[in-house]
């Protein structure tokens, strides 16, 4: 018997695993039929999930935490047992603004700390308080941008204007001069570069080398009541993710996603994030960034609780929520390594032994304790060298 599942997504390259699970038969093998519901705003995706019109959603990790904490309209406990990707964001700024930065784009992207300071100086030279588009208040993009700007003494709530707009409207807003740059998921940064409107200024993967991005979120009560469907879906997604990471499949994947009912953008633009060949300025040769967006390797889908807590620490830092033991526990509970373990207990997926780790402590590839198979974690450092110990949130917050 086939089970139907409705899953909401936004037209972005990192919805790839869901599309592949449906189109390449991985869901079918698990007896699932996926109905993927294309949605144009995070607010509507959230409402569809919270009010039960879909069973799961391709969601910004910080939004899942925020909804659970009651920060984004109707409060509802959400659970994320699976990470759909890590990394994949790019900050682009209008070419005129970027003139105040290092003209050697590769050097600029390789040195986020230096570029943050150049950016801070460029703010004063610009004709107005720079307006930077972010896709949502509770997005990885917003927390990453704030983290990066603050490292150079920029107060993101005072020195720049962060304007929320959905990914699909970013390029038009830039063209109309309503914003001076934006940080969004692919292919939107590449689309702005290709249009000759903007240049790459910072890459998510260079700010936090393994940055949490989209998760698969469920309403917690539904997740608890439907263990069989959840487990089957997670097994299908793990196989779909491995398919997505395979370099031989990138071209086919880009074509699949370019269709109107998925991302509806040229396959050539979508391919850049998948293959890690990022064009930072129009007509330049692509720069090789093999870790630009990850779906499968290094146990990418595993929802480390420490990562939910890192997100929480940033929401506290920017005064979006008050810190309390209760709030921290709620935030941590959003990531569900227990469900991931249960669903994949009989598979050959390498499984981390722990559920929390010190974030930012891995400087070069590291073999770690794993219940099965070999697991090597990639470098996960922050560009400023900080580490986040989830057991010591207060100390971490005091360090800013």
């Amino acid at each position, binding site marked *: 018997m086939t089970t139907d599942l409705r899953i909401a997504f936004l037209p972005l390259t990192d919805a790839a695993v869901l599309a592949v699970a449906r189109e390449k038969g991985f869901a079918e093998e698990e007896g699932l039929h996926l109905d993927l519901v294309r949605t144009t705003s995070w607010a509507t995706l959230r409402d569809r999930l919270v009010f039960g*019109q879909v069973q799961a959603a391709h969601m910004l990790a910080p939004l899942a935490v925020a909804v659970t904490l009651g920060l984004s309209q*109707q409060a509802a406990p959400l659970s994320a047992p699976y990470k759909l990707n890590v990394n994949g964001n790019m900050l682009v700024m209008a070419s005129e603004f970027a003139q105040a930065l290092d003209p050697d784009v590769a050097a600029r992207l390789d040195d986020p700390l230096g570029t943050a300071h150049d950016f801070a100086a460029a703010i004063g030279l610009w004709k107005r308080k720079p307006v930077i588009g972010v896709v949502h208040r509770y997005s990885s993009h917003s927390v990453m941008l704030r983290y990066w700007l603050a490292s150079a003494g920029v107060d993101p709530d005072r020195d720049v204007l962060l304007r929320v707009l*959905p990914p699909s409207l970013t390029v038009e807003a830039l063209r109309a001069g309503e914003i001076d740059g934006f940080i969004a998921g692919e292919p939107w940064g590449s689309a702005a570069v290709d249009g000759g409107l903007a240049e790459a200024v910072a890459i998510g993967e260079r700010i936090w080398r393994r940055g949490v991005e989209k998760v698969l979120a469920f309403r917690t009560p539904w997740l608890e009541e439907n263990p069989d469907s959840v487990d089957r879906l997670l097994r299908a997604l793990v196989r779909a993710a491995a398919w997505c990471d395979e370099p031989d499949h990138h071209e086919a994947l880009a074509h699949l996603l370019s269709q109107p009912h998925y991302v509806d953008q040229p396959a050539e633009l979508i391919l850049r994030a998948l293959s890690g060949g990022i064009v930072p300025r129009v007509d330049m040769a692509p720069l090789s960034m093999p870790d630009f967006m990850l779906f499968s390797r290094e146990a990418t889908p595993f929802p480390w609780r420490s990562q939910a807590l890192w997100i929480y620490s940033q929401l506290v830092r920017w005064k979006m929520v008050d810190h309390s033991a209760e709030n921290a526990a709620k935030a941590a509970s959003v990531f569900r390594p227990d469900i991931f373990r249960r669903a994949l207990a009989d598979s050959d997926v390498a499984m981390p032994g722990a559920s929390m780790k010190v974030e930012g402590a891995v400087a070069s590839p590291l073999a770690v304790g794993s219940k099965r198979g070999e697991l090597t974690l990639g470098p996960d450092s922050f560009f400023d060298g900080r580490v986040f110990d989830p057991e010591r949130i207060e100390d971490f917050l005091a360090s800013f």
Partner: protein
Amino acid sequence: MRIVIIDDSGLRATVLEEGLREAGYDDIHIVPPRGGFVARLERMAPDVVLMDLGSPSRDTLEEMLTVSRALARPIAMFVDQSDESMIGAAIDAGVSAYVVDGLRKERVKPVLELAVRRFNAFARLQSELDEARTALSDRKIIDRAKSILMSQRGLGEPEAYALLRSSAMNQGKRIVDVAQALITASDLLGGM
């Protein structure tokens, strides 16, 4: 009660505005979600904001609701979670609503119900229009196929149509598909 409708499709907003006026609401404004619409909205200080659930600008609006000091903290319409059928109907119809805190839900409910009815009516109207448009283009294709048959086979109009119809029935296809195939073949063969 000041109601602001944020909508890109001028026609749907007008349909909704009309309905609200008939129901006795007279302080209604339509704002397209472009450029600085958030600043405009802030100056209007609405009690209720209605917006298409499918509009990509909902995130921009919600951000404004979160940070604006000019507005009393507004809340989403769906706050009355007990009313699940209402929520379901609103989402199905594609209506989202934001209501200023403190406004009684009995006062807001008729507005939302009206919006749902009007959005649904508008969607029906649009699909009827689409159907009409398709029917029109279907008829043009069939007419062209008929005239090809009439000139090539020396048939009268009723006979040409009967031939198309019986071929369609024999092949288990729609008449318009058979007609299209005939036109394509005729074009390929240089107008025979």
